[in-house]
């Protein structure tokens, strides 16, 4: 009896155990086999972490290594709304003054929001950005504000769960992630060359082991060198595949992949920051004195085509480009084209000298300031009689230049215009360069051959014009403008170096030398640019005063006033172009642009330690010796 009872109990126990184990087995099968994939994914989501490691954007430096653009470490302050819970207003009140945000909007941002995941289940967002580009020194204050957060009800007895919740809220609800802020130490210095950056949303995909997609905020160049060299500056992203614990702390021992980001390359420009500052301060003075719509200047080394300074005013602060009007963002040196006026006579006459169509001593009757050609009158700013070719340049006679052009003929003139680089982009590594406007000979009207030689009926950029002048200074070789000297890695090792590039020979050395002799006369008591002369150097240059086209007609009030010159004339170190758009107090190039040239040239020569010419061989005396002149000129 007892035995049977015991056996029954034993049987029941055994059955229960069997059933229990069978149940466990079934559960095991369900978990490990049937729902394996789903649960594995869930588990991976909980402890696997894929981290995108952003590279540091490369610096932009000037030729002497001064920083023009750099990336400063900052923080992105973010929050996990699920840890904030119903305390969003309290958190917002504590953080709003530190993040410089409205408390109500901040509280709204901290509210828990949900979304439907791929399985159709409701999930809460665990990440919202509160503020980007927060300075490192501001972060301790934010941390302190969170750790001393007043939540109320502290005096009453809190449950363990509530204590943990409050602890997590204070310690982990608001966190910071490393980021970079693009900083321009010079503020507006070389703004149009350096350019600026913007941010855009992008998606980074990690393929291994399973595709992981991450939305990131990407910094990219929007203008200038920042844009042209975005690929080199941006660097290469790294990544880290790792595991985290329940509190989202990384378990370093479980890292699967850890690839460090590769910092962007540093772009070293040919610009010289000090020279750029000199140019910009002199242009600013000219803006105050003459109130033009804009003022631009370029400093080029003729032998190599290196651009040492390139400035346009009005400019803007690179650290806050959004505040600048759109017109100020334009790099007028390459995006604007204008009729060059008298500076273009340099092209006409040097072409004619090269072709032996004229010599410097050939004389032309300038018809006392009134020349009738193809039914249209042509005027000079003075009533000149017979002038030599050298005098045509020195006194800037339109009629004389027109006659030289007529003698050359359209085909020859057009060929030289194109050879000097007009009608084509110079290839400078900046966005937005225009090619200018050079019509083919078939589109020329009858008067074109009289207008184009004096710089009308053709449109060029200031950069094209200064490179053409630099070609004369360089013995007839046209150089490509060079703005980037080299690319360096973060340790300063040179990755790539640019070499000066000869585009072509445009005129012979003899023709260039003759042209220089004529250009020296421009900066003499009888030339148009006495105000451009330097005490210790001989200057060669040309003034330009071009009427602007307003509503389809030449304006009598708005002019492009310019001076392009180089020095020392016989061994040029620098070629400088100054252009003022619609100056209000004075408008002749020799009056408004030449003094700016002189100021820039004097300071640049001093700074670059350009050897002064021997006493008696430079300055005004040398300019005067260039030729025999009488009378006065004003263009």
């Amino acid at each position, binding site marked *: 009896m007892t035995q049977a009872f015991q056996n029954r109990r034993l049987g029941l126990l055994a059955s229960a155990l069997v059933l229990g184990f069978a149940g466990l087995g079934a559960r095991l099968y369900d978990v490990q086999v049937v729902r394996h994939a789903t649960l594995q994914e869930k588990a991976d989501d909980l402890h696997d972490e894929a981290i995108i490691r952003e590279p540091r954007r490369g610096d932009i430096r000037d030729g002497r290594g001064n920083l023009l653009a750099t990336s400063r470490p900052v923080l992105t302050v973010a929050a996990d709304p699920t840890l904030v819970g119903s305390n969003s207003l309290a958190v917002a009140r504590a953080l709003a003054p530190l993040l410089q945000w409205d408390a109500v909007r901040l509280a709204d941002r901290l509210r828990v929001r949900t979304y439907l995941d791929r399985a159709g289940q409701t999930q809460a967002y665990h990440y919202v950005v509160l503020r980007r580009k927060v300075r490192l020194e501001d972060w301790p204050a934010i941390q302190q504000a969170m750790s001393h957060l007043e939540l109320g009800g502290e005096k009453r007895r809190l449950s363990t769960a509530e204590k943990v919740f409050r602890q997590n809220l204070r310690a982990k609800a608001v966190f910071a992630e490393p980021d970079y802020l693009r900083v321009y*130490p010079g503020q507006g210095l070389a703004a149009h060359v350096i350019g600026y950056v913007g941010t855009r949303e992008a998606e980074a995909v990690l393929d291994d082991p399973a595709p992981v997609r991450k939305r990131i905020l990407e910094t990219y160049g929007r203008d200038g060198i920042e844009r042209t060299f975005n690929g080199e500056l941006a660097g290469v992203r790294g990544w880290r595949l790792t595991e985290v614990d329940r509190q989202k702390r990384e378990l370093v021992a479980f890292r699967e992949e850890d690839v460090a980001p590769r910092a962007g390359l540093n772009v070293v420009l040919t610009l010289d920051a000090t020279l750029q500052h000199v140019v910009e301060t002199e242009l600013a003075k000219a803006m105050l004195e003459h109130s033009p719509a804009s003022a631009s200047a370029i400093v080029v080394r003729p032998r190599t085509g290196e651009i040492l300074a390139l400035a346009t005013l009005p400019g803007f602060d690179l650290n806050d480009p959004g505040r600048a009007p759109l017109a100020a963002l334009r790099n007028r040196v390459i995006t604007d084209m204008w009729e060059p006026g008298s500076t273009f006579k340099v092209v006409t006459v040097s072409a004619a000298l090269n072709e032996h169509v004229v010599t410097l001593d050939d004389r032309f009757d300038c018809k006392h300031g009134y020349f009738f050609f193809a039914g249209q009158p042509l005027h000079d700013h003075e009533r000149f009689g017979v002038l030599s070719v050298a005098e045509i340049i020195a006194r800037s006679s339109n009629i004389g230049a027109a006659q030289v052009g007529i003698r050359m003929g359209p085909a020859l003139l057009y060929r030289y215009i194109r050879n000097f680089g007009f009608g084509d982009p110079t290839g400078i590594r900046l966005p937005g360069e225009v090619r200018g406007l050079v019509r083919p000979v078939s589109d020329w009207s009858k008067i074109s051959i009289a207008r184009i030689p004096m710089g009308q009926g053709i449109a060029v950029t200031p950069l094209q014009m200064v490179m053409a002048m630099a070609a004369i200074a360089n013995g007839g070789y046209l150089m490509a403008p060079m703005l980037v000297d080299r690319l360096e890695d973060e340790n300063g090792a040179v990755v790539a170096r640019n070499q000066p590039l000869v585009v072509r020979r445009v005129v012979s050395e003899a023709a260039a030398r003759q042209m220089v002799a004529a250009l020296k006369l421009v900066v003499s008591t009888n030339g148009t640019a006495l105000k451009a002369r330097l005490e210790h150097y001989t200057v060669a240059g040309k003034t330009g005063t071009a009427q602007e086209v307003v509503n389809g007609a030449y304006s009598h009030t708005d002019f492009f006033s310019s001076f392009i010159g180089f020095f020392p004339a016989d061994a040029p170190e620098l070629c400088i172009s100054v252009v003022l758009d619609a100056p209000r107090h004075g408008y002749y190039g020799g009056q408004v642009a030449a003094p700016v040239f002189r100021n820039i040239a004097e300071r640049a020569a001093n700074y670059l330690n350009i050897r*002064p010419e021997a006493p008696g061989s430079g300055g005004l005396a040398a300019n005067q010796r260039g030729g025999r002149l009488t009378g006065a000129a004003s263009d």
Partner: protein
Amino acid sequence: MARNRRNQSAAIRFGPALKALLFCLFFGGSGVGYVWQKQQIYELSRERKQCEVQLDDLRRQSHQYAAQLAILTTAQELDARVKQLNLGLGPPQPDQVLQLVEAAPTPGAAGVRPVQQLVAFRSGLRAAR
């Protein structure tokens, strides 16, 4: 017939006891060693993480100081400081610059060194005074 256990020899059987002890020591030691090793891995990974964070901080500071230095050494900033401190500094004028012309080497003057040239120049200056 088997002997009653009470009547068995009281002598301790060391062999099996030692075996059991070694067995226990082995498994216990393995367990403790495993935990110790895990703890070491955890500690090392924690230290590594700390070092990484520290290195990142130092890099960040270095970049920050570089940016600050760049701002302080811009031409605008230096110009402003010169004006603010009323230092009266300016670029030297060409007539304030002494140009030393290097003479082309001649057979007779092969041994003349720049220092000697400078001494000769200074003595010339004194003579002129």
